[in-house]
Protein backbone atom coordinates (compact mmCIF):
# COMPACT_ATOMS: atom_id res chain seq x y z
CA UNK A 1 0.00 0.00 0.00
CA UNK A 2 2.84 2.27 0.96
CA UNK A 3 4.53 1.56 -2.37
CA UNK A 4 1.34 2.28 -4.26
CA UNK A 5 0.87 5.59 -2.43
CA UNK A 6 4.41 6.67 -3.16
CA UNK A 7 3.91 5.84 -6.83
CA UNK A 8 0.56 7.64 -6.90
CA UNK A 9 2.10 10.79 -5.47
CA UNK A 10 4.76 10.76 -8.17
CA UNK A 11 2.28 10.52 -11.07
CA UNK A 12 1.72 14.28 -11.70
CA UNK A 13 5.43 15.11 -11.54
CA UNK A 14 6.45 12.25 -13.81
CA UNK A 15 3.62 13.01 -16.20
CA UNK A 16 4.84 16.59 -16.66
CA UNK A 17 8.40 15.27 -17.01
CA UNK A 18 7.38 12.70 -19.60
CA UNK A 19 5.57 15.28 -21.74
CA UNK A 20 8.78 17.34 -21.86
CA UNK A 21 10.76 14.22 -22.79
CA UNK A 22 8.11 13.28 -25.38
CA UNK A 23 9.70 15.86 -27.71
CA UNK A 24 13.13 14.25 -27.55
CA UNK A 25 11.58 10.78 -27.90
CA UNK A 26 9.94 12.06 -31.09
CA UNK A 27 13.30 13.49 -32.18
CA UNK A 28 14.94 10.09 -31.58
CA UNK A 29 12.19 8.27 -33.51
CA UNK A 30 12.32 10.54 -36.56
CA UNK A 31 15.67 9.57 -38.11
CA UNK A 32 15.50 5.94 -36.92
CA UNK A 33 12.03 5.26 -38.22
CA UNK A 34 10.96 7.83 -40.81
CA UNK A 35 14.36 7.95 -42.53
CA UNK A 36 15.68 4.47 -41.57
CA UNK A 37 18.94 6.18 -40.66
CA UNK A 38 20.24 5.78 -37.08
CA UNK A 39 21.19 9.06 -35.41
CA UNK A 40 22.72 9.56 -31.95
CA UNK A 41 23.01 13.35 -32.07
CA UNK A 42 20.08 13.77 -29.64
CA UNK A 43 22.52 13.14 -26.77
CA UNK A 44 24.19 16.43 -27.79
CA UNK A 45 21.37 18.48 -29.28
CA UNK A 46 19.28 18.10 -26.11
CA UNK A 47 21.83 19.75 -23.76
CA UNK A 48 22.80 22.21 -26.51
CA UNK A 49 19.21 23.45 -26.64
CA UNK A 50 19.12 23.66 -22.86
CA UNK A 51 22.43 25.53 -22.59
CA UNK A 52 21.64 28.07 -25.33
CA UNK A 53 18.25 28.65 -23.75
CA UNK A 54 19.71 28.97 -20.23
CA UNK A 55 22.49 31.32 -21.27
CA UNK A 56 20.09 33.62 -23.16
CA UNK A 57 17.56 33.75 -20.32
CA UNK A 58 20.33 34.47 -17.83
CA UNK A 59 21.49 37.28 -20.13
CA UNK A 60 18.03 38.83 -19.81
CA UNK A 61 16.47 37.70 -23.10
CA UNK A 62 12.89 36.57 -23.53
CA UNK A 63 12.25 32.86 -22.87
CA UNK A 64 10.50 32.63 -26.24
CA UNK A 65 13.60 33.88 -28.05
CA UNK A 66 15.73 31.56 -25.88
CA UNK A 67 13.69 28.49 -26.89
CA UNK A 68 13.77 29.48 -30.54
CA UNK A 69 17.54 29.99 -30.49
CA UNK A 70 18.02 26.70 -28.62
CA UNK A 71 15.97 24.82 -31.22
CA UNK A 72 17.93 26.44 -34.04
CA UNK A 73 21.14 25.26 -32.36
CA UNK A 74 19.73 21.73 -32.31
CA UNK A 75 18.84 22.01 -35.99
CA UNK A 76 22.45 22.90 -36.79
CA UNK A 77 23.76 20.03 -34.64
CA UNK A 78 21.52 17.51 -36.41
CA UNK A 79 22.42 18.88 -39.84
CA UNK A 80 26.11 18.72 -38.92
CA UNK A 81 25.84 14.98 -38.25
CA UNK A 82 23.98 14.47 -41.52
CA UNK A 83 26.55 16.52 -43.41
CA UNK A 84 29.48 14.55 -41.98
CA UNK A 85 27.72 11.29 -42.82
CA UNK A 86 26.72 12.24 -46.36
CA UNK A 87 29.81 14.17 -47.44
CA UNK A 88 32.56 12.08 -45.87
CA UNK A 89 30.78 8.71 -45.95
CA UNK A 90 31.32 8.26 -42.19
CA UNK A 91 28.79 5.99 -40.47
CA UNK A 92 25.98 8.09 -39.04
CA UNK A 93 26.52 6.47 -35.60
CA UNK A 94 30.17 7.50 -35.47
CA UNK A 95 29.39 10.93 -36.93
CA UNK A 96 26.81 11.42 -34.18
CA UNK A 97 29.25 10.50 -31.41
CA UNK A 98 31.87 12.88 -32.81
CA UNK A 99 29.37 15.75 -33.01
CA UNK A 100 28.04 15.02 -29.49
CA UNK A 101 31.57 15.14 -28.08
CA UNK A 102 32.28 18.43 -29.82
CA UNK A 103 28.98 19.93 -28.63
CA UNK A 104 30.02 19.41 -24.99
CA UNK A 105 32.77 22.01 -25.42
CA UNK A 106 30.37 24.30 -27.28
CA UNK A 107 27.94 24.06 -24.35
CA UNK A 108 30.65 25.12 -21.89
CA UNK A 109 31.65 27.99 -24.17
CA UNK A 110 28.06 29.18 -24.44
CA UNK A 111 27.35 29.10 -20.71
CA UNK A 112 30.85 30.02 -19.53
CA UNK A 113 30.45 27.55 -16.66
CA UNK A 114 28.94 24.11 -16.18
CA UNK A 115 25.59 25.26 -14.78
CA UNK A 116 23.43 28.37 -14.44
CA UNK A 117 20.54 28.86 -12.01
CA UNK A 118 17.45 30.39 -13.65
CA UNK A 119 15.03 30.60 -10.72
CA UNK A 120 15.14 34.39 -10.55
CA UNK A 121 14.43 34.82 -14.29
CA UNK A 122 11.07 34.62 -16.07
CA UNK A 123 10.28 31.32 -17.79
CA UNK A 124 7.98 30.28 -20.61
CA UNK A 125 5.41 28.63 -18.38
CA UNK A 126 4.92 31.61 -16.06
CA UNK A 127 4.81 34.01 -19.00
CA UNK A 128 1.90 32.09 -20.55
CA UNK A 129 0.00 31.76 -17.25
CA UNK A 130 1.27 33.09 -13.91
CA UNK A 131 2.45 30.33 -11.55
CA UNK A 132 2.05 27.64 -14.21
CA UNK A 133 5.54 26.28 -13.59
CA UNK A 134 4.68 25.41 -10.01
CA UNK A 135 1.08 24.33 -10.67
CA UNK A 136 1.11 20.88 -12.26
CA UNK A 137 -2.65 21.09 -12.92
CA UNK A 138 -1.88 23.86 -15.44
CA UNK A 139 1.50 22.71 -16.64
CA UNK A 140 0.42 19.21 -17.68
CA UNK A 141 -2.46 20.33 -19.97
CA UNK A 142 -0.22 23.04 -21.44
CA UNK A 143 2.53 20.54 -22.27
CA UNK A 144 -0.04 18.03 -23.56
CA UNK A 145 -1.33 20.73 -25.89
CA UNK A 146 2.20 21.30 -27.18
CA UNK A 147 2.71 17.58 -27.83
CA UNK A 148 -0.69 17.36 -29.57
CA UNK A 149 0.31 20.30 -31.76
CA UNK A 150 3.55 18.55 -32.73
CA UNK A 151 1.69 15.32 -33.57
CA UNK A 152 -0.93 17.18 -35.60
CA UNK A 153 1.64 19.17 -37.58
CA UNK A 154 3.83 16.12 -38.22
CA UNK A 155 0.87 14.06 -39.38
CA UNK A 156 -0.42 16.81 -41.67
CA UNK A 157 3.08 17.31 -43.13
CA UNK A 158 3.52 13.61 -43.86
CA UNK A 159 0.33 13.65 -45.93
CA UNK A 160 1.45 16.49 -48.21
CA UNK A 161 3.35 15.92 -51.46
CA UNK A 162 6.56 16.95 -49.69
CA UNK A 163 5.82 14.70 -46.71
CA UNK A 164 5.14 11.63 -48.86
CA UNK A 165 8.44 12.27 -50.67
CA UNK A 166 10.18 12.53 -47.28
CA UNK A 167 8.82 9.15 -46.17
CA UNK A 168 9.86 7.57 -49.47
CA UNK A 169 13.51 8.30 -48.61
CA UNK A 170 13.16 6.17 -45.47
CA UNK A 171 11.16 3.45 -47.23
CA UNK A 172 13.43 2.93 -50.25
CA UNK A 173 16.19 5.45 -50.94
CA UNK A 174 17.00 4.15 -54.45
CA UNK A 175 13.35 4.27 -55.44
CA UNK A 176 12.98 7.77 -54.00
CA UNK A 177 15.93 9.03 -56.07
CA UNK A 178 14.51 7.33 -59.16
CA UNK A 179 11.39 9.46 -58.58
CA UNK A 180 13.49 12.63 -58.55
CA UNK A 181 13.71 13.06 -54.78
CA UNK A 182 17.01 14.49 -53.55
CA UNK A 183 17.74 11.94 -50.81
CA UNK A 184 20.66 13.77 -49.21
CA UNK A 185 18.66 16.97 -48.82
CA UNK A 186 15.79 15.11 -47.16
CA UNK A 187 18.17 13.35 -44.76
CA UNK A 188 19.83 16.68 -43.94
CA UNK A 189 16.49 18.34 -43.21
CA UNK A 190 15.22 15.30 -41.30
CA UNK A 191 18.28 15.16 -39.05
CA UNK A 192 17.99 18.92 -38.58
CA UNK A 193 14.32 18.70 -37.60
CA UNK A 194 15.10 15.86 -35.19
CA UNK A 195 17.91 17.93 -33.65
CA UNK A 196 15.61 20.93 -33.31
CA UNK A 197 13.00 18.81 -31.49
CA UNK A 198 15.60 17.37 -29.10
CA UNK A 199 16.96 20.87 -28.40
CA UNK A 200 13.42 22.17 -27.89
CA UNK A 201 12.93 19.41 -25.33
CA UNK A 202 16.17 20.42 -23.57
CA UNK A 203 15.13 24.08 -23.54
CA UNK A 204 11.76 23.17 -21.99
CA UNK A 205 13.45 21.04 -19.34
CA UNK A 206 15.85 23.79 -18.36
CA UNK A 207 13.00 26.25 -17.82
CA UNK A 208 10.89 23.69 -16.04
CA UNK A 209 13.59 22.70 -13.54
CA UNK A 210 14.99 26.22 -13.17
CA UNK A 211 18.61 25.57 -14.03
CA UNK A 212 20.76 24.74 -17.05
CA UNK A 213 23.54 22.18 -16.76
CA UNK A 214 25.98 20.83 -19.38
CA UNK A 215 25.34 17.30 -18.13
CA UNK A 216 21.56 17.14 -18.66
CA UNK A 217 22.14 15.22 -21.88
CA UNK A 218 23.86 12.24 -20.34
CA UNK A 219 21.80 9.13 -21.12
CA UNK A 220 18.87 10.92 -22.79
CA UNK A 221 19.37 9.02 -26.04
CA UNK A 222 18.73 5.73 -24.25
CA UNK A 223 15.75 7.26 -22.45
CA UNK A 224 14.41 8.30 -25.83
CA UNK A 225 15.13 4.94 -27.41
CA UNK A 226 13.45 3.16 -24.48
CA UNK A 227 10.42 5.41 -24.96
CA UNK A 228 10.27 4.66 -28.70
CA UNK A 229 10.55 0.90 -28.19
CA UNK A 230 8.00 0.78 -25.35
CA UNK A 231 5.69 3.01 -27.37
CA UNK A 232 5.95 0.80 -30.44
CA UNK A 233 5.10 -2.27 -28.36
CA UNK A 234 1.92 -0.46 -27.25
CA UNK A 235 0.83 1.30 -30.45
CA UNK A 236 2.48 -0.86 -33.12
CA UNK A 237 3.92 0.63 -36.32
CA UNK A 238 1.22 -0.36 -38.78
CA UNK A 239 0.40 3.18 -39.90
CA UNK A 240 1.97 6.62 -39.98
CA UNK A 241 -0.32 7.70 -37.18
CA UNK A 242 0.75 4.85 -34.88
CA UNK A 243 4.40 5.46 -35.67
CA UNK A 244 4.08 9.13 -34.72
CA UNK A 245 2.13 8.34 -31.57
CA UNK A 246 4.60 5.68 -30.38
CA UNK A 247 7.34 7.96 -28.92
CA UNK A 248 4.78 10.06 -27.05
CA UNK A 249 2.88 7.09 -25.59
CA UNK A 250 6.25 5.46 -24.90
CA UNK A 251 7.65 8.50 -23.08
CA UNK A 252 4.62 8.58 -20.77
CA UNK A 253 4.82 4.82 -20.14
CA UNK A 254 8.58 4.89 -19.63
CA UNK A 255 8.42 7.56 -16.92
CA UNK A 256 5.69 5.64 -15.11
CA UNK A 257 7.85 2.51 -15.17
CA UNK A 258 10.74 4.54 -13.76
CA UNK A 259 8.38 5.94 -11.16
CA UNK A 260 7.32 2.44 -10.10
CA UNK A 261 10.98 1.46 -9.78
CA UNK A 262 11.63 4.51 -7.59
CA UNK A 263 8.55 3.77 -5.46
CA UNK A 264 9.83 0.24 -4.99
CA UNK A 265 12.99 1.72 -3.53
CA UNK A 266 15.42 1.82 -6.47
CA UNK A 267 18.12 4.44 -5.85
CA UNK A 268 17.90 7.28 -8.43
CA UNK A 269 21.61 6.75 -9.14
CA UNK A 270 20.82 3.23 -10.43
CA UNK A 271 18.32 4.51 -13.01
CA UNK A 272 20.76 4.61 -15.94
CA UNK A 273 21.67 0.97 -15.38
CA UNK A 274 18.00 0.04 -15.07
CA UNK A 275 17.07 1.90 -18.28
CA UNK A 276 19.94 0.34 -20.20
CA UNK A 277 18.97 -3.09 -18.92
CA UNK A 278 15.35 -2.47 -19.92
CA UNK A 279 16.33 -1.52 -23.48
CA UNK A 280 18.70 -4.49 -23.75
CA UNK A 281 16.05 -6.84 -22.44
CA UNK A 282 13.48 -5.67 -24.95
CA UNK A 283 15.89 -5.87 -27.85
CA UNK A 284 17.08 -9.30 -26.77
CA UNK A 285 13.62 -10.69 -25.94
CA UNK A 286 13.08 -12.44 -29.29
CA UNK A 287 16.40 -14.30 -28.87
CA UNK A 288 15.86 -15.22 -25.22
CA UNK A 289 12.21 -16.20 -25.31
CA UNK A 290 11.57 -18.99 -27.83
CA UNK A 291 7.84 -18.25 -27.56
CA UNK A 292 8.25 -15.04 -29.55
CA UNK A 293 8.15 -16.05 -33.18
CA UNK A 294 10.25 -14.51 -35.89
CA UNK A 295 8.55 -11.58 -37.48
CA UNK A 296 6.95 -10.54 -34.20
CA UNK A 297 6.84 -6.84 -33.43
CA UNK A 298 9.78 -7.12 -31.00
CA UNK A 299 11.89 -8.96 -33.56
CA UNK A 300 11.23 -6.31 -36.18
CA UNK A 301 12.24 -3.57 -33.76
CA UNK A 302 15.46 -5.35 -32.85
CA UNK A 303 16.47 -5.74 -36.47
CA UNK A 304 15.85 -2.16 -37.42
CA UNK A 305 17.21 -0.28 -34.40
Amino acid at each position, binding site marked *: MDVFLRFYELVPVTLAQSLIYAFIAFGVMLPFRLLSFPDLTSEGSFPLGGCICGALIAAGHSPFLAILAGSLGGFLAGSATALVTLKFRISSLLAGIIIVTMIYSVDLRIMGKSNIALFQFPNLFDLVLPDMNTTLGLKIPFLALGVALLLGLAYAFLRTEKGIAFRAVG*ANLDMAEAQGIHGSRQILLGFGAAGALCAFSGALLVQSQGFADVNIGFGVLINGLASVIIGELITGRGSVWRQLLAPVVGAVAYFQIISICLALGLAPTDLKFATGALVLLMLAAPKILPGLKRGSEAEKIRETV
Partner: protein
Amino acid sequence: MLAANDLRKRFFAGTPNERVALDGLSFDLKPGAFCVVIGSNGAGKSTLLNAIAGKFPLDGGSIAIAGEDVTALPAWQRARLVARVFQDPMTGTAPGMTVEENLLLAETRGQKRWLTWGLTASRRATYRDQLALLGLGLENRLSDRIDLLSGGQRQAISLIMAAQGKPQLLLLDEHTAALDPVTAGRVMEATLRVVAENKLTTLMVTHNMQHAIDHGDTLLMLDAGRVQFLATGDEKNRLSIEDLIARFRHKEDRILLAG
Protein backbone atom coordinates in the same frame (compact mmCIF):
# COMPACT_ATOMS: atom_id res chain seq x y z
CA MET B 1 15.89 10.56 -78.16
CA LEU B 2 18.74 8.67 -76.56
CA ALA B 3 22.34 9.16 -77.63
CA ALA B 4 24.97 7.02 -75.90
CA ASN B 5 28.45 7.96 -77.03
CA ASP B 6 31.56 5.90 -76.21
CA LEU B 7 30.41 4.88 -72.72
CA ARG B 8 33.19 3.56 -70.51
CA LYS B 9 33.02 2.14 -66.99
CA ARG B 10 35.42 0.03 -64.95
CA PHE B 11 34.37 -1.44 -61.59
CA PHE B 12 36.85 -2.04 -58.76
CA ALA B 13 39.53 -0.20 -60.74
CA GLY B 14 43.03 -0.82 -59.42
CA THR B 15 42.08 -3.99 -57.53
CA PRO B 16 42.46 -7.65 -58.52
CA ASN B 17 38.67 -7.67 -59.10
CA GLU B 18 38.85 -4.95 -61.74
CA ARG B 19 36.22 -5.51 -64.38
CA VAL B 20 35.50 -3.57 -67.55
CA ALA B 21 31.71 -3.27 -67.71
CA LEU B 22 31.31 -0.74 -70.53
CA ASP B 23 34.01 -0.58 -73.16
CA GLY B 24 33.28 2.23 -75.60
CA LEU B 25 29.59 1.48 -76.08
CA SER B 26 27.74 3.77 -78.54
CA PHE B 27 24.25 3.76 -80.06
CA ASP B 28 21.32 6.08 -80.80
CA LEU B 29 17.57 5.67 -80.43
CA LYS B 30 14.98 7.60 -82.42
CA PRO B 31 11.96 9.08 -80.62
CA GLY B 32 9.32 6.40 -80.10
CA ALA B 33 11.76 3.51 -80.66
CA PHE B 34 11.19 0.28 -78.73
CA CYS B 35 14.63 -1.25 -78.35
CA VAL B 36 15.18 -4.77 -77.00
CA VAL B 37 18.58 -5.33 -75.37
CA ILE B 38 20.03 -8.85 -75.22
CA GLY B 39 23.42 -10.29 -74.37
CA SER B 40 25.00 -13.00 -72.23
CA ASN B 41 25.63 -12.55 -68.50
CA GLY B 42 28.19 -9.85 -67.89
CA ALA B 43 27.70 -8.31 -71.34
CA GLY B 44 26.87 -4.97 -69.72
CA LYS B 45 23.06 -4.83 -70.10
CA SER B 46 22.27 -3.82 -66.54
CA THR B 47 25.33 -1.59 -66.33
CA LEU B 48 24.10 0.22 -69.44
CA LEU B 49 20.68 0.83 -67.86
CA ASN B 50 22.27 1.95 -64.59
CA ALA B 51 24.53 4.32 -66.51
CA ILE B 52 21.56 5.86 -68.33
CA ALA B 53 19.61 6.19 -65.06
CA GLY B 54 22.63 7.84 -63.42
CA LYS B 55 23.38 5.27 -60.71
CA PHE B 56 27.12 5.91 -61.00
CA PRO B 57 29.41 8.39 -62.76
CA LEU B 58 30.93 7.18 -66.02
CA ASP B 59 34.68 6.90 -66.55
CA GLY B 60 34.23 8.28 -70.05
CA GLY B 61 31.71 9.04 -72.79
CA SER B 62 28.46 10.97 -72.74
CA ILE B 63 24.73 10.36 -72.57
CA ALA B 64 22.07 12.67 -73.99
CA ILE B 65 18.35 12.18 -73.45
CA ALA B 66 15.90 14.17 -75.60
CA GLY B 67 18.79 16.34 -76.74
CA GLU B 68 19.91 17.19 -73.22
CA ASP B 69 23.38 16.11 -72.06
CA VAL B 70 22.75 14.34 -68.73
CA THR B 71 26.24 12.87 -68.25
CA ALA B 72 26.99 15.03 -65.20
CA LEU B 73 23.52 14.79 -63.58
CA PRO B 74 22.87 12.56 -60.55
CA ALA B 75 20.03 10.01 -60.66
CA TRP B 76 17.47 12.22 -58.92
CA GLN B 77 17.93 14.98 -61.50
CA ARG B 78 17.53 12.59 -64.43
CA ALA B 79 14.23 11.37 -63.02
CA ARG B 80 12.26 14.01 -64.92
CA LEU B 81 13.44 12.37 -68.17
CA VAL B 82 13.79 8.69 -67.27
CA ALA B 83 11.48 6.15 -65.62
CA ARG B 84 12.47 2.61 -64.79
CA VAL B 85 11.03 -0.79 -63.89
CA PHE B 86 13.42 -3.18 -62.17
CA GLN B 87 13.67 -6.97 -62.26
CA ASP B 88 12.99 -7.19 -58.51
CA PRO B 89 9.52 -5.85 -57.69
CA MET B 90 10.91 -4.73 -54.30
CA THR B 91 13.41 -2.33 -55.87
CA GLY B 92 10.96 -0.12 -57.70
CA THR B 93 8.38 0.44 -54.96
CA ALA B 94 8.45 1.95 -51.47
CA PRO B 95 7.48 -0.71 -48.90
CA GLY B 96 5.49 0.39 -45.87
CA MET B 97 3.72 2.97 -48.04
CA THR B 98 0.35 2.47 -49.69
CA VAL B 99 -0.31 1.75 -53.36
CA GLU B 100 -1.73 5.26 -53.86
CA GLU B 101 1.25 6.89 -52.13
CA ASN B 102 3.58 4.99 -54.46
CA LEU B 103 1.57 6.17 -57.45
CA LEU B 104 1.73 9.75 -56.15
CA LEU B 105 5.52 9.53 -55.86
CA ALA B 106 5.63 8.45 -59.49
CA GLU B 107 3.13 11.07 -60.66
CA THR B 108 5.25 13.84 -59.12
CA ARG B 109 8.48 12.33 -60.48
CA GLY B 110 10.98 15.02 -61.31
CA GLN B 111 8.52 17.83 -60.52
CA LYS B 112 8.46 20.34 -57.70
CA ARG B 113 6.55 18.89 -54.75
CA TRP B 114 4.44 21.25 -52.68
CA LEU B 115 3.15 21.50 -49.15
CA THR B 116 -0.30 20.71 -50.49
CA TRP B 117 -2.44 17.72 -49.62
CA GLY B 118 -1.02 14.73 -51.47
CA LEU B 119 -3.82 12.25 -52.04
CA THR B 120 -6.73 14.32 -53.27
CA ALA B 121 -10.02 12.74 -54.33
CA SER B 122 -9.32 13.50 -58.00
CA ARG B 123 -5.91 11.84 -57.83
CA ARG B 124 -7.41 8.76 -56.21
CA ALA B 125 -10.03 8.57 -58.96
CA THR B 126 -7.32 8.80 -61.64
CA TYR B 127 -5.24 6.06 -59.99
CA ARG B 128 -8.32 3.87 -59.70
CA ASP B 129 -8.97 4.19 -63.45
CA GLN B 130 -5.34 3.53 -64.33
CA LEU B 131 -5.18 0.39 -62.21
CA ALA B 132 -8.55 -0.84 -63.48
CA LEU B 133 -7.04 -1.03 -66.99
CA LEU B 134 -4.70 -3.80 -65.76
CA GLY B 135 -7.66 -6.06 -65.06
CA LEU B 136 -6.07 -7.44 -61.88
CA GLY B 137 -8.56 -5.98 -59.38
CA LEU B 138 -5.87 -3.64 -58.00
CA GLU B 139 -8.19 -0.64 -58.21
CA ASN B 140 -9.74 -1.84 -54.94
CA ARG B 141 -6.43 -1.95 -53.09
CA LEU B 142 -5.33 1.68 -53.38
CA SER B 143 -4.98 2.18 -49.63
CA ASP B 144 -3.27 -1.18 -48.96
CA ARG B 145 0.43 -1.23 -48.17
CA ILE B 146 2.25 -2.14 -51.37
CA ASP B 147 4.48 -4.71 -49.66
CA LEU B 148 1.38 -6.79 -48.91
CA LEU B 149 0.83 -7.39 -52.65
CA SER B 150 2.33 -10.25 -54.69
CA GLY B 151 5.41 -9.75 -56.86
CA GLY B 152 3.32 -9.73 -60.03
CA GLN B 153 0.90 -7.17 -58.64
CA ARG B 154 3.75 -4.94 -57.51
CA GLN B 155 5.41 -5.24 -60.91
CA ALA B 156 2.18 -4.30 -62.69
CA ILE B 157 1.90 -1.25 -60.45
CA SER B 158 5.58 -0.41 -61.09
CA LEU B 159 4.74 -0.31 -64.77
CA ILE B 160 1.80 2.07 -64.24
CA MET B 161 4.11 4.14 -62.02
CA ALA B 162 6.81 4.30 -64.70
CA ALA B 163 4.32 5.52 -67.31
CA GLN B 164 3.12 8.39 -65.06
CA GLY B 165 3.96 11.75 -66.54
CA LYS B 166 5.03 10.18 -69.89
CA PRO B 167 8.81 9.99 -69.38
CA GLN B 168 11.07 10.71 -72.36
CA LEU B 169 12.69 7.33 -71.86
CA LEU B 170 11.40 4.13 -70.24
CA LEU B 171 13.94 1.57 -68.96
CA LEU B 172 12.73 -2.00 -68.41
CA ASP B 173 15.36 -4.15 -66.69
CA GLU B 174 14.24 -7.79 -67.18
CA HIS B 175 11.04 -6.68 -65.54
CA THR B 176 9.19 -9.96 -66.10
CA ALA B 177 12.08 -12.32 -65.28
CA ALA B 178 11.18 -12.82 -61.60
CA LEU B 179 7.50 -13.63 -62.31
CA ASP B 180 5.71 -16.92 -63.03
CA PRO B 181 4.94 -17.46 -66.76
CA VAL B 182 1.25 -16.49 -66.56
CA THR B 183 1.90 -13.30 -64.59
CA ALA B 184 4.91 -12.51 -66.77
CA GLY B 185 2.64 -12.75 -69.83
CA ARG B 186 0.11 -10.37 -68.28
CA VAL B 187 2.79 -7.84 -67.29
CA MET B 188 4.29 -8.06 -70.80
CA GLU B 189 0.87 -7.41 -72.35
CA ALA B 190 0.35 -4.43 -70.07
CA THR B 191 3.84 -3.19 -70.99
CA LEU B 192 3.10 -3.22 -74.71
CA ARG B 193 -0.19 -1.44 -74.18
CA VAL B 194 1.29 1.25 -71.92
CA VAL B 195 4.22 1.84 -74.28
CA ALA B 196 1.95 2.09 -77.34
CA GLU B 197 -0.65 4.31 -75.65
CA ASN B 198 1.93 6.78 -74.39
CA LYS B 199 4.31 6.42 -77.39
CA LEU B 200 7.21 5.95 -74.98
CA THR B 201 10.77 5.53 -76.18
CA THR B 202 11.71 2.26 -74.51
CA LEU B 203 14.82 0.26 -73.72
CA MET B 204 13.94 -3.27 -72.60
CA VAL B 205 16.54 -5.73 -71.33
CA THR B 206 15.45 -9.36 -71.65
CA HIS B 207 16.86 -12.89 -71.50
CA ASN B 208 13.84 -14.22 -73.35
CA MET B 209 14.78 -14.70 -77.03
CA GLN B 210 11.12 -15.05 -78.03
CA HIS B 211 10.39 -11.63 -76.49
CA ALA B 212 13.39 -10.21 -78.31
CA ILE B 213 12.01 -11.48 -81.64
CA ASP B 214 8.35 -10.67 -81.03
CA HIS B 215 8.61 -7.20 -79.55
CA GLY B 216 10.21 -3.92 -80.39
CA ASP B 217 11.47 -2.30 -83.58
CA THR B 218 15.15 -2.24 -82.65
CA LEU B 219 17.42 -4.96 -81.32
CA LEU B 220 20.67 -4.29 -79.51
CA MET B 221 22.99 -7.20 -78.73
CA LEU B 222 25.78 -6.44 -76.27
CA ASP B 223 28.99 -8.34 -75.67
CA ALA B 224 31.79 -7.48 -73.25
CA GLY B 225 30.55 -3.92 -72.80
CA ARG B 226 30.32 -3.17 -76.53
CA VAL B 227 27.60 -3.25 -79.17
CA GLN B 228 27.96 -6.55 -80.98
CA PHE B 229 24.95 -6.19 -83.23
CA LEU B 230 22.27 -3.56 -83.83
CA ALA B 231 19.24 -4.22 -86.01
CA THR B 232 16.38 -1.86 -86.84
CA GLY B 233 13.30 -1.81 -89.06
CA ASP B 234 13.04 -4.64 -91.63
CA GLU B 235 16.32 -6.19 -90.59
CA LYS B 236 14.97 -6.54 -87.04
CA ASN B 237 11.65 -7.90 -88.34
CA ARG B 238 13.35 -10.61 -90.39
CA LEU B 239 15.43 -11.90 -87.44
CA SER B 240 14.66 -15.34 -86.06
CA ILE B 241 15.67 -16.97 -82.79
CA GLU B 242 18.13 -19.09 -84.79
CA ASP B 243 19.81 -15.94 -86.10
CA LEU B 244 20.24 -14.64 -82.59
CA ILE B 245 21.57 -17.93 -81.26
CA ALA B 246 23.98 -18.12 -84.19
CA ARG B 247 25.36 -14.75 -83.19
CA PHE B 248 25.77 -15.89 -79.59
CA ARG B 249 27.42 -19.08 -80.84
CA HIS B 250 29.70 -17.15 -83.13
CA LYS B 251 31.05 -15.49 -80.03
CA GLU B 252 31.42 -18.79 -78.15
CA ASP B 253 33.33 -20.30 -81.09
CA ARG B 254 35.72 -17.40 -80.91
CA ILE B 255 36.24 -18.08 -77.23
CA LEU B 256 36.89 -21.76 -77.95
CA LEU B 257 39.35 -20.92 -80.70
CA ALA B 258 41.10 -18.39 -78.52
CA GLY B 259 41.31 -21.02 -75.75
